[in-house]
């Protein structure tokens, strides 16, 4: 689909086009300065910072537990996973000294997997729905958003919020599940699986959609690694790497995560690592998340009366440890819907972090934009942005 046009030989006059910061297909305030030669992109320079909120600086000013609500804002499309990444990192820091050891209750670990995977489902629904919408298919987007509402309803019952949850805390989760939560989640998943079949009939197997995505912006496995692509973007290029399976945190090691990879799903026109592969890998990951939620519900121990019970509780006592955490540094990687969400945390032994660093998937995905956009059609730029599932607050932080 994207012919290898030698831009220098075209001889035309280049035109500079500002795409964004207010453009519906850039999924937020991302600005791309695109130089075009006719319809072909000659250069694409992303411009960032429109949504910079100094979250890493705020991390140096607030106490350990007070930073959790800010992690929601790092990536509000998957706030549960963002909470989880920070909390797992702080727990690992505390566990590096036996004096401040934290044991997260088993029930809390199961609840964490349930909410994180539900949030992965809703985040991937936004990704695939928005990509379909960018390519002109408005109906699948509405179906995806309708299903996302189901996840939001579950979360609203759980913690009162629909977007920024502040639910996962250091040492556990904020509230225990209510009595019907497991049954309601199962009921949602049952109807959701049927709905996904319809969604796939509507867009995934649609020939026009496939032709728009097949063979566009092919990224080789070596390039994907070198440019720091993570998550579904990396796996779309066929690199077999998922932190939930390969460096498990929480109880993911017990769940046997299966990792779908890109394999030129679009058929004859498709190539491994094209836009369609990244799209389909997300859909397959949704199926895997459904399985993980069910597996975590099966493992869920019954609630104990006590919040800090090591099995049936939901919140370990950490207040004392967080006043005097161990001195040192830690790096933790977790698998968020947009790939590796890694925290580097430096502690000087006080109740305020010395340095909090968030490494997010969308930020590094932008570093490959210029390379991958050169030589494709201008109309395919939105396909590429959609296939990377860019969330701008995650880029700018």
């Amino acid at each position, binding site marked *: 689909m994207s012919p290898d046009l030698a831009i220098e030989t075209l001889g035309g006059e280049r035109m500079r086009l500002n795409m964004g910061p207010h453009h519906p297909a850039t999924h937020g305030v991302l600005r791309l300065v695109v130089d075009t030669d006719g319809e072909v992109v000659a250069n694409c320079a992303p411009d*960032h*910072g429109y949504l*910079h909120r*100094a979250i*890493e*600086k705020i991390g*140096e000013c607030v106490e350990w537990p007070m930073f959790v609500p800010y992690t929601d804002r790092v990536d509000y499309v998957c706030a549960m996973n963002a909470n989880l990444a920070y909390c797992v990192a702080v727990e690992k*820091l505390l566990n*590096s*000294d036996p004096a401040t050891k934290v044991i997260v209750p088993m029930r809390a670990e199961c609840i964490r997997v349930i909410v994180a995977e539900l949030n992965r489902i809703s985040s991937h629904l936004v990704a695939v729905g928005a990509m379909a919408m960018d390519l002109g298919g408005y109906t699948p987007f509405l179906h995806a958003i309708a299903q996302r509402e189901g996840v939001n309803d579950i979360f609203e019952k759980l913690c009162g919020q629909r977007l920024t949850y502040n639910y996962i805390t250091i040492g556990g989760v904020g509230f225990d599940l209510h009595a019907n939560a497991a049954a309601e989640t199962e009921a949602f998943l049952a109807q959701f699986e049927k709905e996904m079949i319809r969604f796939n009939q509507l867009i995934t197997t649609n020939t026009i959609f496939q032709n728009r995505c097949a063979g566009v912006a092919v990224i080789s496995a*070596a390039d994907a*690694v*070198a*440019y*720091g692509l993570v998550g579904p973007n990396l796996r779309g290029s066929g*690199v077999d*790497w998922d932190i939930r399976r*390969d460096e498990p945190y929480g109880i993911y090691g017990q769940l046997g995560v299966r990792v779908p990879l890109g394999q030129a799903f679009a058929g004859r026109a498709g190539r491994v690592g094209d836009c369609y592969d990244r799209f389909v890998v997300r859909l397959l990951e949704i199926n895997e998340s459904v399985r993980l939620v069910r597996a975590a519900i099966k493992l869920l121990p019954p609630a104990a009366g006590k919040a800090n019970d090591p099995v049936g509780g939901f919140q370990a006592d950490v207040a004392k440890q967080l006043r005097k955490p*161990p*001195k*040192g*540094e*830690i*790096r933790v*990687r977790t698998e968020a819907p947009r790939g*590796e969400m*890694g925290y*580097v945390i*430096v502690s*000087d*032994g006080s109740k305020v972090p*010395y*340095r909090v*660093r968030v*490494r997010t998937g969308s*930020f*590094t995905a*932008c*570093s*490959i934009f210029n*390379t991958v956009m050169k030589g494709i059609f201008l109309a395919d730029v939105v396909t590429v942005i959609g296939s990377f599932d860019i969330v701008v607050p995650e880029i*700018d*932080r």
Partner: protein
Amino acid sequence: MSALAFADIVERLRAVFPAATLPAIETKTSDNGQPWLLVPANDIVRVATVLRDDPVLGFAALCDLTGWDLLKYAANPPSTDIAIVYYLHSLIHRHHLTLKVLAPRDTGTVPSVSSVWPVANYFEREVFDLLGVHFAGHPNLKRIMMPDDWIGSPLRKDYIYPASYNGIAHLRDGQKFEDAPTRGDAAAPAQAAKP
């Protein structure tokens, strides 16, 4: 191929370089027992290339490149340097390595590794923007988060909060930053030498 422990990685790295050109790498441990490798700034590109290309080491991925200001970290001995930290990962062998380069506060220039790992282009721009460390040989070293005309490096521990930006006040009348740092030089290298 199997994952190597930290000591084995360092041993291999020492073995790869001919004795005459061996960079002065030092193994260190953080306060909570995390091992890392101190690399002299001038040797970072050489070390990085070997780490990436050696078949036994195979660090094809730069997971993260960040840094922090050591000014107020009670280390022994105390330091005023900016630590630049490289987190490497090998997808083939499944092992990790942490490298650090110490950049002096005022004249901090570190050779860019963006020719080794292209993703470093973005990471180094972020470190340059927020910590004011220059990366020599970087193809496009300019601010990435903050506006181009911003003054200072916000993540430095002696950063002075500006009261206004281009005539737009950050504070209401009579309000002041409760704990604005008082130490430090307003002319940090990041704002002195604009790219």
